[in-house]
């Protein structure tokens, strides 16, 4: 059974596993952890549509599968369209009496940042704009990990990837991250949220809300990737937590157009602490870090203005 009411403690997380162990994700993979919790929330009556990417590859090496739910993968750039097709089929079959009209079956689309921000953006836009009843979860590890850590539209400023390498002339990614929440917001969909596995209760409650939304919803989850971010296996949650505490990742919720910060940060940690933990930012010089701090300050200011309160406070140097 899917969860319908918000949870207050970790003890309320269902024990049942629907995305089961034995898959081939790296140790410390944030995305796999996210999916595990997602599936606990959505329960049995959900059909999963997965875009090509790490999560698809690690979970379905024939003849094994990590999925105890019906699961469909077609290609990289079409999770939105494929989810639309499943949802339309369910609707038609229920209306025609082939499927039980009174049983609610949710369509859950899962895609990486590449499959969402870049190559899958058109398909996602179509799905959102047409109002399909689909819950879309984007796990954002900030690069094309499956193909070997190439940059995506979600790669943050300054990050090393294999296609934004560090050299004499260029030093990592030189463009800021694309605003996927803003793009989803422009589609006027009923529910949008950002989440982070270091805040599991907040993340799960957002999954619950997205599940219980009728119409399109999008949850954008930060997914630490140990090889891609060059962090030790044991540090992914710590890094993810710092992303929130530095204001690099703000935990947001936009319900029917109304934005809200769900995890307020009274005093921010400096971005340096987040950057210094990760090998992908190792090359950054003081002035680069200063620039990133300024970018985050500006972002935080925008968010505070948007939500109409100082949800994220100023930086507190230790």
């Amino acid at each position, binding site marked *: 059974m899917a969860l319908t009411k918000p949870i207050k403690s970790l003890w309320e997380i269902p024990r049942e596993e629907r995305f089961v162990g034995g898959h081939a994700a790296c140790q410390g993979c944030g995305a796999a952890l996210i999916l595990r919790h997602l599936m606990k929330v959505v329960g*049995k009556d959900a059909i999963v549509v997965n875009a090509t990417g790490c999560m698809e590859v690690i979970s379905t090496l024939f003849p094994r599968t990590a999925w105890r739910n019906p*699961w469909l993968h077609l290609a990289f*750039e079409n999770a939105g*369209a494929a989810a639309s*097709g499943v949802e*339309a*089929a369910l609707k038609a079959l229920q209306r*025609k009496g082939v499927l039980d009209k009174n049983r609610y079956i949710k369509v859950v689309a899962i895609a990486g940042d590449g499959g969402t921000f870049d190559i899958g953006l058109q398909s996602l836009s179509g799905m959102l704009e047409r109002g399909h009843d689909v819950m879309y979860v984007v796990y954002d590890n900030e690069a094309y990990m499956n193909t070997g850590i190439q940059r995506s539209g979600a790669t943050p400023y300054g990050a090393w990837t294999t296609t934004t390498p560090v050299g004499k002339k260029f030093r990592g990614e030189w463009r800021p991250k694309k605003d996927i929440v803003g793009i989803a917001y422009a589609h006027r969909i009923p529910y949008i949220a950002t989440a982070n596995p270091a805040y599991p209760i907040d993340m799960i409650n957002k999954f619950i809300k997205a599940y219980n939304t009728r119409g399109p919803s999008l949850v954008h989850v930060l997914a630490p990737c140990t090889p891609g971010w060059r962090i030790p296996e044991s540090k992914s949650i710590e890094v993810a937590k710092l992303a929130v505490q530095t204001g690099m990742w703000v935990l947001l919720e936009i319900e029917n157009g109304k934005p809200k910060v769900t995890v307020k940060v009274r005093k921010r940690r400096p971005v340096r602490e987040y950057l210094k933990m990760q090998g992908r930012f190792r090359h950054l010089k003081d002035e680069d870090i200063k620039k990133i701090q300024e970018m985050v300050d500006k972002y935080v200011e925008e968010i505070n203005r948007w939500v109409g309160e100082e949800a994220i406070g100023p930086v507190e140097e230790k």
Partner: protein
Amino acid sequence: MAVVEEKPREEQLPTRKKKIAATGSDAAAYAVRDADVDVVAVYPITPQAPIAENIAQMIADGELDAELIHVESEHSAMSAAVAAAATGARSFTATSSQGLELMHEILYIASGLRQPVVMALATRALSAPINIWNDYADAMGMRDTGWIMIFSENVQEVYDNLVQAFRIAEHPDVLLPVVVTLDGYILSHTTEALEPLDREEVLSFAPKRPRGYRPVLDPDHPVTIGVLGAPNWYQEIKVQQALAMRESRRVIEEAGKEFGKRYGREYGFIEPYYMDDAEVAIVTLGATSSLVKAAVNRLREQGVKAGMVKIRVFRPFPAEELAKVLENVNALGVLDRAVSFGGALEGPLAMEVLSTLAVRGVMKPFINFIHGLGGRDIFVKDVVEMYQKLLEAAKSGKSVTRTLFYGVRSRKGHVI
């Protein structure tokens, strides 16, 4: 072997049905309506657009109870159609030319996942230069995608082929997607007499099978569709797909025969025309066949023993049928409306026909003609001229090794 004999069709009809005036696009939409399709995902393109519009109107009028997904591209159209089929719905799409090219990636996924999607393809030339008129470049480009491919010669065939397509695609021994072509404009926009079937008839001929007869996305029976197939399994999966394509021959043949028994219009893999005593023959596809038939008629009046073979089912390719019917000709031509640039022969159909014969040890003086690209009119006199070339080849016993482009506006003449 199911070969349609040339008999006046009215004589065969068990019951006379009402005929209506319809374009190929109308016929396609009627077939979708009568087959009670559940999900339609379409993106408009010329000359397919009237199919999409007709279906939308039928849904708006309550004549068809289906979900119409107004996808934002053909890539998404095919993706949604495949996903709907994977959910257990009867699913349909239609496209042309550039749209088919945009779908291309998902065409292989439809067949690889064994999803019985049915598609109508209003054939059209490919860019560049952009051109909205008929040829078979788009259809030929999907020949290796694992789809069953059926060509229609007239509006009635568009309807009949689509009705059969649902039965073939969803047959448990097949489970492959099926495309039915209609020549862009020539059929899609041209009004002919059409005899549609009653809906109950269609649903008894192409029944909707009980849910669960094939694995579908169902929370009570969860399946993983679209796995990663490593080298230790990929080949077996692909060989199974090839075997399913072979197996589909039986199902296609049965469908064509039973259609004939029920409704008086029998369909085979090929349709021979005056082939019993033909000395020279041309093989072709689609509505172009009508044109070639007209040329054959003219030559027959002059006492020339000309014949024609129309290929109705292009995939799986009717190799046995073709080899048999061509056994006794003295020279053979293939009329292509597509170019395989730099190919061993530049006509894709010619390559298929020739390898069919060669592997069976049937060697005939051979000429590959290409004409009618991008809607260039093929005149009956052009085809008559092709037959004359074949008569020369028959006499000399020699093939023309170079593919001949006909109807070209060139200082060197109209044959290049």
